[in-house]
C-alpha cells in the first residue's frame, strides 16, 4: 500500500502553550520588612498588595515601611558597619558575597518565575537575562572585595558607610544586585528599597541573605512607596544614595541631598538613538532594533527608542522591521515562547497609551503588529511611529514602553547632531560595516554606553551609566566601585 507523500496540506503550524511551572516556588501571603536579618512588622502595621500584571491577581501583601522603620534599618546598617563589616577583611567580605551568588544560582529557576509573575517580563528574559546577570554581578564584585587598592591606585580606598539604595521596577532583582554587590564589596552596609510593584525578588534575596549567614544589619530591605524612599534619602545617617529610576525623581533626590555630606549616583532616564547606516548588516540591525525597543516591553532606561535610518535604506529597513514584529509573541509572561510580556502596572500602561495618543494627535503614522493581546492584565502591542521629527513630543520624552519612533537622515553630521539633540545621554546604537565610521560615531555620540552593531547588551564587567540628564556615576566593572569608595 502506497502511503501519501504530502505535507498533509496542513501548513498552519503554531506553538502550543508552554507555560513554565510555578509548582516549585514558595511565596508567603505576607512579607515583612527585612531589618537586622529579621522579618519585622512595619510600625504602621500597613501592607499593600503586589499583583501579577498579566492577570491582576494579588500575589502577596507587602509591608509599608515608615520613617521609623527606615530609621531602624539605618541604625541596624550603621551598627553593622561600625561593629562588624568595616572591621572584617576584604577577603572575608568577599566570601559572603560569593556565597550569596552561589545560593542565588541554586535558586535561579524560582527567582525567574517569581520575577516574571511580579513584573510581567517574559520568562525567557528573566530566566536567560535578569537572573543569570544578577548572580554574575555578585560573583564579579565578590572578587573585588580584597583587591580594592588595585581599583583606585591613586588613593587609599575606604568605604563610605551606610548606603541607601532605591531601585526601579523594570529589572527588580538585577537592579538589587547592581546596587548591593558593589556596595558590599567596597565595605559598605546597605538599606535597599525595591519598587512598590516589584518587591518580591528582593525579599526572596533577603531570604538568601539571611540563610547565607551575612552578619545582621549588613543588608536591610525596606519595602514601600515613594515616602519610604524619601525617608532613606532624608535620613541624616545615610552616607550614600544610589538611585535608579526616572530623571524627575533623580532631581528630587539630588535637591534633597544638596548641602549634605551624602554622595549620590543616579542612573536615570534616556531617549537613546539607534542609528542604521546604509552599509549596515541590515537583518542584524533589524534584530538590534527589535532588541533595542521591545526587550522587557521597552521598560529599559537605555532602550533604543529613537531610531534613525539612512533615507536610502529606510523603506527596506521599515519593511523588514514590520515583518519581524509579526513574529513576536505578546502574552503570558510565563509562557516560554512569549517575547513581550505584560506592562508592569496599570499606571505605566496609561502612560504609554497617553504617548500613543499624543503621537497620533501629532500626526505621526502609527503601525502596530497584528498580534492578539490578552483581555485581562496590562498589555501593549509593539508599536512604531513613522513620519516623525525631533520636534515631536514622542521623540523627545521617554515613553518607557514598546513604542519606537523612526526618523530618516541623510548625512553623518546630521545624524550625530540629532542623536545628541536631547537632554539625555544614556546609550546609543550604531550599525555600519565600516570600522572607521563606527569609531567616528562612537566618539561623537554623547552617551555613556555605545553599542556598535549590537544593542542592549549588559555584563557585570561593563560599566553602565549616563551623560547629562541620564544621571551620573557608573555601575558595573571597575568603574562601578568608585561610587562606593572614598
Amino acid at each position: 500500500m502506497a502511503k501519501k507523500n504530502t505535507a498533509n496540506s496542513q501548513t498552519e503550524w503554531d506553538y502550543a502553550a508552554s507555560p513554565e511551572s510555578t509548582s516549585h516556588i514558595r511565596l508567603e501571603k505576607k512579607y515583612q520588612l527585612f531589618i537586622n536579618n529579621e522579618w519585622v512588622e512595619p510600625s504602621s502595621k500597613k501592607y499593600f498588595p503586589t499583583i501579577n500584571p498579566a492577570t491582576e491577581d494579588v500575589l502577596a501583601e507587602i509591608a509599608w515601611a515608615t520613617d521609623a522603620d527606615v530609621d531602624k534599618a539605618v541604625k541596624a546598617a550603621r551598627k553593622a558597619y561600625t561593629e562588624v563589616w568595616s572591621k572584617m577583611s576584604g577577603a572575608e567580605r568577599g566570601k559572603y558575597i560569593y556565597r550569596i551568588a552561589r545560593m542565588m544560582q541554586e535558586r535561579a529557576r524560582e527567582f525567574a518565575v517569581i520575577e516574571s509573575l511580579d513584573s510581567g517580563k517574559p520568562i525567557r528574559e528573566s530566566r536567560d537575562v535578569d537572573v543569570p546577570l544578577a548572580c554574575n554581578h555578585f560573583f564579579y564584585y565578590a572578587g573585588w572585595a580584597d583587591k580594592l587598592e588595585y581599583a583606585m591606585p591613586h588613593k587609599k580606598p575606604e568605604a563610605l558607610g551606610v548606603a541607601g539604595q532605591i531601585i526601579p521596577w523594570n529589572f527588580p532583582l538585577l537592579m538589587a544586585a547592581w546596587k548591593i554587590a558593589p556596595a558590599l564589596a567596597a565595605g559598605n552596609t546597605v538599606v535597599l528599597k525595591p519598587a512598590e510593584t516589584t518587591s518580591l525578588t528582593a525579599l526572596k534575596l533577603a531570604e538568601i541573605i539571611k540563610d547565607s549567614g551575612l552578619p545582621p544589619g549588613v543588608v536591610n530591605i525596606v519595602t514601600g512607596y515613594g515616602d519610604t524612599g524619601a525617608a532613606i534619602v532624608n535620613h541624616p545617617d545615610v552616607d550614600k544614595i544610589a538611585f535608579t529610576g526616572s530623571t524627575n525623581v533623580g532631581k528630587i533626590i539630588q535637591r534633597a541631598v544638596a548641602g549634605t555630606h551624602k554622595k549620590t549616583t543616579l542612573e536615570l532616564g534616556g531617549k537613546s538613538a539607534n542609528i542604521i547606516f546604509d552599509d549596515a548588516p541590515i537583518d542584524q540591525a533589524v534584530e538590534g532594533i527589535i532588541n533595542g525597543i521591545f526587550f522587557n516591553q521597552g521598560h529599559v532606561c537605555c532602550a533604543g527608542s529613537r531610531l534613525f535610518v539612512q533615507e536610502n535604506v529606510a523603506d527596506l529597513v521599515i519593511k523588514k522591521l514590520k515583518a519581524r514584529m509579526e513574529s513576536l509573541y505578546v502574552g503570558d509572561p510565563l509562557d516560554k515562547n512569549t517575547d513581550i510580556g505584560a506592562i508592569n502596572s496599570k499606571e505605566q500602561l496609561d502612560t504609554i497609551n497617553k504617548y500613543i495618543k499624543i503621537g497620533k494627535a501629532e500626526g505621526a503614522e502609527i503601525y502596530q503588529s497584528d498580534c492578539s493581546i490578552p483581555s485581562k492584565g496590562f498589555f501593549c502591542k509593539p508599536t512604531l511611529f513613522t513620519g516623525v521629527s525631533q520636534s515631536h513630543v514622542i521623540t523627545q520624552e521617554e515613553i518607557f514602553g514598546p513604542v519606537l519612533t523612526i526618523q530618516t537622515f541623510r548625512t553623518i553630521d546630521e545624524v550625530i547632531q540629532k542623536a545628541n539633540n536631547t537632554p539625555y545621554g544614556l546609550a546609543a546604537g550604531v550599525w555600519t560595516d565600516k570600522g572607521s565610521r563606527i569609531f567616528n560615531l562612537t566618539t561623537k555620540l554623547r552617551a555613556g554606553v555605545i553599542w556598535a552593531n549590537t544593542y542592549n547588551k549588559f555584563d557585570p564587567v561593563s560599566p553602565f551609566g549616563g551623560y547629562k540628564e541620564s544621571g551620573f556615576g557608573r555601575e558595573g566593572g571597575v568603574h562601578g566601585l568608585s561610587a562606593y569608595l572614598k
Partner: protein
Amino acid sequence: MEILKTYKIYIGGAFPRTESGRYYPIVDASGSTIANVCLSSRKDVRNAVVAARKVFGGWSEKTAFNRGQILYRMAEMLEGRKLQFLEELTKQGSSKEAAALEVQESIDCLVYYAGWADKFQQIASSVNPVSSSHFNFSALEPMGVIGIVAAQETSLIGLVKFIAPAICGGNTAVVAASEAFPLCAVTFAEVVHSSDVPGGVVNILTGKVSELAPAMAAHMDVNALVTESLGELDKPLALACVDNLKRNLAYQHAVPQGLQYITALQEVKTTWHPIEQIGGASSSY
C-alpha cells in the same frame, strides 16, 4: 607718570570689557586703589558659555599629545612673565616668599598636567572581558563646558589648579576669578592667549562670586561646576546644579596636583562591538 594696566575680561579669545559696563576697585593693604576690574554680569557668563561650547568639539578632538604641548607652552609663558605675576601678587598683599611660591606652584601645576594629557586615559580606561562575543572597552571623555569658581583666597594658583586639569582632559572652561584678588587672573588670561590655546577654551571673568557662580550653576549648557568651599553659597549652588543634573564638584580643599582632578571632569563611555569567531570549527590559532 606710570601707565596703569586696564584689567579686562577674557571671552572667546578676545579681551572685552564687561557688557554691563560695571567696575569695582581693588585696593592694597593700605586701602588705596591699585586697579579697577570688570564687575562681570550673568550676560558675560552667558557669552563665555557660548564661546566655550563653540570650541568644545575642536578642543576635545585635538590629539592628547597636542593638548599636552599647549599646556606645556602655558607653563613656558607663565615662566616668562614671572615678574609681572610676582608684582601683582605682592600688590595684592602676598609676601615676596609666598608670591614666589605661588608662581612656582602654578608653573609646576601646568607642567604636571601637561604631562598627564596623553597618559590619564591609559590609567583610567579599561578593556572589559564580557561573557559574550564582544569587544568591550571603557574610555574617558571630557564632560564639556566646565564652570569654575577659582579658589578665593589666592589670586593665581587657585585659578590654575582648576583650569589645568579641566582643559588637560579636553574640556573648555568658564572661570570666575578670585573676587578679592583678581589681578593675576587677567594676566593669566594673557598667558593663555599667547600659548596656542584656541580662543574660547578658557574664558575668565572677574566680579562677584555671588553673582557669577549662581549664573554658572544655573546655566543649562554648563556640564559641571567646580568650586572650593564657598561657605553659605555651597548649598544654593548645589541646588541650582540640579536642573540639568550638572556635575557639582564642591571641593573642601583642592591641591594643585592630582589625577582625580582630571578624571572627575570626565565621563566614562563604554563601547561594545561584536567579535566574529572565524569558521565554525574549533580554532587553535
